[in-house]
Each structure stands twice: as C-alpha cells, then as structure tokens.
C-alpha cells in the first residue's frame, strides 16, 4: 500500500473525530481497537519484516501492562511520570524483557524460534499467578488513573485521545524505523540472514535488536491497555492473546506496513460487535485465518493490492465484476457457514441438552428471532443451499479470473 498522504490525513482526522460520533461503549471498543492495532504493528515488524515468527508476543504486551500498572500505583500521576507518560514504562518493560527473551530465542531460527517464544510466554503464564507481589495472583492488580497536567483522565474521551496520540506516534516511529539502517537490515535478515554473516554483520545481534524493538512497542501497547482498563491480570499472558495478534496480523497481511494494524482493527471491531450475538466468534476468526493463509496469503491488504493491479491491467469493469463475484461468494459462504455453526452451537449447548432430555422430541432452537426445528429438512437446507451457491460462485470466479482473483 503506497503512502497516500491525503488518505492518511483523512484517516487520522476520522479517528480524531470518533469521540464526537460514537457512544461510550463503542468508544471503549475503539480504544481496544487502537491498542490491538499497535500491538499488531509491533508484531508485524518482527514477523513480517524480520521474518521471525513469534507465538508468544503476549509476554511483552503483558509485562508492559503490569509495569504500567505498578508505575501508576507508585507515581500517582505526578512527579517524574505524569499519567500521559505512563505508557513509557510499558515500553521500557517490554524492551527489557524483549532483550533477554530475544537473546535466547534468536539463537535458533524458523520453527524452533517460534516454539521458544511460545514457551517463554507459557512460562510467564505459569509463573505469574505464583508471584503475587508482582502479578497480583488470580485477581491481578488494579489501579486508577490519576489526574495530571490539568486533566482528570476520568472520561473515556480523554483516554481515547491519549491512546490515539500514543498509537499514532508509535506507528509513525515504526514506519520511520523501516527507513533506518537498522530497519533495512531487518529486511535483509528475513531475506538471507546467512549471507549477512559473510558481509560482516553480527546476525544474532541483529535478531536481538529487532526482537527488542518489537517487544518494546508491544509493551507500550500493553501499557496503553492497562491505562485504559485500570487493571492488569495474568490472563494477559494467555496463549490466546498471543494467538489473536498472530491471526489479526496475517489476516490483515504482513506484507504491507499497515496490514497488521488494519487486520487487528477490523477483527477487534467485529469481535466486539458480534460478541453478544455469537459464542463462536473465535471459530470464525480461525476459519478466516486459515482461508486467508490458503487462498490469500498476502492477507486482506494484499487482496486490495491485487484488486488495484487488476484494475490497472484489465480496467474497471472486469475488476468490479470479479469483486462482485468474489464478494457475493464470500457473503453466501459466510451466511451458510455461520448459520450452520450457530445451529450446531445451540444444539450442543448445555441448556439445550437439558431441554432435549426432558422433552419427547427435539425442541426447536431460536435463531435470528425465529424457531428452527433440528429435525426438519428445511432447517438444514438453508445453510446447505447457501454454501452450495457460494461454492458455485467461487468456481465461476476461478474459471474466469484464474490466479488473479
């Protein structure tokens, strides 16, 4: 994705205007979106640019969160670290842990590296509940945002703007990094680390420095989350947190700079929006991830780029047509799949099982406000036909557009 300055300015303006248009609940979700976007950008720098796949990035995010919470309790908003500067503590903690963890992990490459990062995160996850002083045991540590620099930081809006400023600044710094010698070297590391040694570079050191920078910004993101939630809990080291950032980044596409951020923003938004409607959101996210990895390995941002190339090569009409085909297929397949999953989810839930045991025949489940009987054919025909139509469209699209689609 090219650096399109007007588009960027518009995006920032839109983000700045959100508190005026969104209700409180959605604004909180937006803060989560920003934090997730930064976390994903930090992650994408390591796995996309440096080519080092980390499965335990929650460790640095979490340490940042805890460090910030402790600092908030210690400083109380005044003195050396006023509240707005608290995320720096998160960054420092992320950096420190990142250097140590990175030193170990970058001794190996590829899949072994990934396993080591996972093990480090699991180590923290197992250790944290035991160290009650540092991590607050099962319930975690809580804190309060202290008023500082004339602002109370009590309202969501103020927290939103604080988060926005930090996220924009961090992403800008990450972008700047890509233009520095160190940043170019991380690219070379991904391409051919072996050759770098013969060019005189200390490759282990390069790996540690890339890891540490990624961990630093992850810690900063964790600090922002702690600031917003006013709490940190050892659940932040959970493998699910590491998994989510991986999924988000690759769904967005690690090939482009803003891909992971956009993927994270999208997924967090959807997660928030549908979390009341479905319990299977994680399953959908996983399926989307696998589909992306298999059919659109450059992620959603890569798809966008493909679309642009399609327009350049063949003009508007084929591009729009193929977009409609693919989009239509996606909608049908999603509708059919989601319907089937939601049906199954209700049928397999504990409440339903209790009901079914008590009743003479299988009772109906409620979906989209209507009852559906599990034994009737029409209930299952609906998702089946949706899926079938979607599959047909996919075949048509592939016939027409081959690999470009």
């Amino acid at each position, binding site marked *: 994705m090219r650096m399109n300055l007007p588009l960027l300015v518009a995006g920032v303006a839109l983000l700045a205007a959100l508190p005026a248009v969104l209700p409180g609940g959605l604004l909180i979700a937006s803060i989560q979106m920003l934090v997730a976007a930064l976390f994903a950008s930090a992650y994408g720098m390591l796995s996309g640019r440096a*080519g080092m*796949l980390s*499965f335990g990035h929650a460790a640095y995010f979490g340490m940042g969160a805890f460090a910030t919470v402790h600092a908030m309790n210690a400083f109380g908003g005044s003195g050396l670290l006023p509240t707005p500067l608290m995320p720096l503590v998160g960054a420092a903690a992320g950096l420190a842990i990142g250097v140590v963890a990175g030193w*170990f992990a970058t*001794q*190996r490459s*590829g*899949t*072994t590296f*990934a*396993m*080591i990062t*996972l*093990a*480090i995160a*699991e*180590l923290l996850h*197992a*250790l944290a509940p*035991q*160290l009650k*002083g*540092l991590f607050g045991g099962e319930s975690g540590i809580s804190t309060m945002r202290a008023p500082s620099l004339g602002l109370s930081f009590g309202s969501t809006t103020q927290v939103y703007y604080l988060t926005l400023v930090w996220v924009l600044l961090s992403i800008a710094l990450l972008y700047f990094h890509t233009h520095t010698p160190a940043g170019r070297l991380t690219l070379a590391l991904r391409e051919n680390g072996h050759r770098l040694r013969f060019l005189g570079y200390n490759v282990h050191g390069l790996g540690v420095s890339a890891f540490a920078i990624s961990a630093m910004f992850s810690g900063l993101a964790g600090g922002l989350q702690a600031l917003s939630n006013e709490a940190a809990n050892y659940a932040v080291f959970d*493998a699910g947190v590491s*998994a989510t950032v*991986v*999924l988000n980044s*690759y769904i967005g596409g690690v090939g482009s700079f803003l891909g992971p951020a956009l993927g994270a923003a999208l997924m967090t938004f959807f997660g928030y929006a549908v979390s009341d409607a479905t319990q*299977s959101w*994680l*399953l959908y996210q*996983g*399926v989307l*991830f*696998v589909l992306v*990895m*298999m059919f659109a*390995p450059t992620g959603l941002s890569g798809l966008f780029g493909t679309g642009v190339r399609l327009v350049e090569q063949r003009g508007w009409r084929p591009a729009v047509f193929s977009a409609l085909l693919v989009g239509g297929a996606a909608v049908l397949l999603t509708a059919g799949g989601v319907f089937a*999953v939601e049906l*199954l*989810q209700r049928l*397999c*839930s*504990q409440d339903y099982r209790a009901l079914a045991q008590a009743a003479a025949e299988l009772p109906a489940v409620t979906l989209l406000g209507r009852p559906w009987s599990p034994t009737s054919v029409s209930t299952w025909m609906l998702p089946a036909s949706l899926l079938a139509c979607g599959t047909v469209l996919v075949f048509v699209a592939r016939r027409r557009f081959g690999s470009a689609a």
Partner: protein
Amino acid sequence: MDTFVFSLLNGTVYGLLLFMVSAGLTLVFGMMGVLNFAHASFYMLGAYFAYTLQGPIGFGPAVVAATLLSGAVGVVVERWFLRRVHHHGHAHELLLTFGLSFIIAETIKLFFGNYPVDYRIPPALDFAAFTIGRQQYPAYRALMAVVALAMFGALWLLLTRTRIGIVVRAAIYRPRMAQALGHNVQLVFMGVFGVGAALAGLAGAIAGAFYTTNPNMALEVGVMVFVVVVVGGLGSLGGAMLASLLIGVITSLAVSVDRSLADLLSVVGAGAWAEAVGGLLTLKLSSLAATLPFALMLLILLVRPAGLMGEKA
C-alpha cells in the same frame, strides 16, 4: 521413600506419555522441516473421539477407533491443507497448522462445551496393580506405560528393520532422491503424517481417560511436547524419549517437594533473610513444578543449542 518411588513412577509414566505424542511430531518434523502445531490437536481429538465412542462400542474398541480416526484427520490435514501451501515455505506451513489447531480447539468447544468432559477409565481397568508401602499403584498407569513402550519398540523396529522403514528414512533425508528412485514420496509423507497423528490420537485416547479431557489439553500437552523436541533434539527419536522422561520425572518429583529456596538457604542460616525478601525465594518447588520444563529448555538453549541428542547445527 514411598512418595519418592511413587513420584518417580508417575513421572516416568507421564514422560512416556509425552513421548507417545512427541515421537510423531519429531518424525514429521524430520520429514517436512516444519513443526506441526496441530499435532497436539490430534492428541485432543483422540481423547474426544474415544470419549464419544466409549458409550456405544466400549472402551477398547473406542480407543482403537479413536486412533484410526485421528490418523484419518491427519491424512486429510496433510493432503488437503498442508500440501497446498507447501510451496509457500516453512513459516507459512507453521502458520497454517497453527490456524488449524485453533479451529480444532474451537470446534471441540462448539460440540462439547468449554469445560472438561467426563471421560473415565472403565471400571474393568480401574484396579490396583501393586502396592508400594501403604499406597496402591493404579494398573491403568502401568497400562499407559506399556502402550508407550510398545509403541517405541514398534516404531524403532519399523524404521530400522523393515523395507518401509528404509523408504521412510530415505524420504526424510533425501526426498528428491527417493522420488527419483521411484518411490512415491508424497504417499510416504501422507503416511508418516497419518501415523504420527494416529499415535498422538492413541496417546490422547488412553491418557484422556486418566487425566482430564478438556479443550485446552492440546495447548498444555502441545507446549510440553515442543519443549521435549527442543530439549531432546529435533528429529531424534532417542532424544525425544530421553527428554520426555527427563521432563516427566523432574516435574513429578518437583510437585511433591514442598520446599522453597528459602528453606534451602535456611540450612546456611540465611533463611530469615530469604523469607523477608519473598518473591521467587519463597515459592515452593511444588508450585514451580509447571515452569521447570521451560527453565530446562532455556538452559539447553544456552548450553547445548542442538538439543541433548540433536545434530550440531
């Protein structure tokens, strides 16, 4: 003393169980160069398959069926998913297996709920094998150990003494050459993957009845298995066995030790100081037991990065 022997036996059994799962993983890694993140998911699937089938067809047949079903899922994963992304590189394959493991876990949560299920040893097998001191040792644990050892023996014999074994080993080390010699390397890949998955499924079917069966078991065992593979050395069956036993025994022995570093320091008179410092020093070893394998892994990385029996890089 009884406790010690008990812990030792338990640790050995747990280690053998870890081996059952990591053997397949280390073989597949040697063959494909990628650590299959979904491998532990086959373990979980084996447990859930067996649990579902135990009612209709009985425990023994359920275990056998679960093994075969897990193997079948493994074959499907290799043929329809992994093979498609093979040309994108190892990182891509790893990510794909990661996604698949995620989906498998979520699907199990969909069907069975996000809590443990009541998968239990059948009463016929729920007796004491022997008595140590005043405590009875459950026969089922001995059964798990026997199955694991039998599996190790069978695998080793198969790989080193049979023609299939030679072909598999050739395909692992020199896939293109083996293909040039006329062997269907793709079939071998699929077969090894399926066998690895089946073995993991067998381990799950057997262990799930004894330990807990829940949607998180893949992650718990999975991380442990990866630690085993790193500690033992990638691609080495012997290393996997050694590392599994080591980790099993260390964890098991540590769980029974209710002492902390502070207690150790009190031997030299620094006990009170250590208690005052708190934190890590006052943590009992039993609480830390779960973290010991990770510490071992980091130690190995420092001292012997190729693993205990791995080839030097």
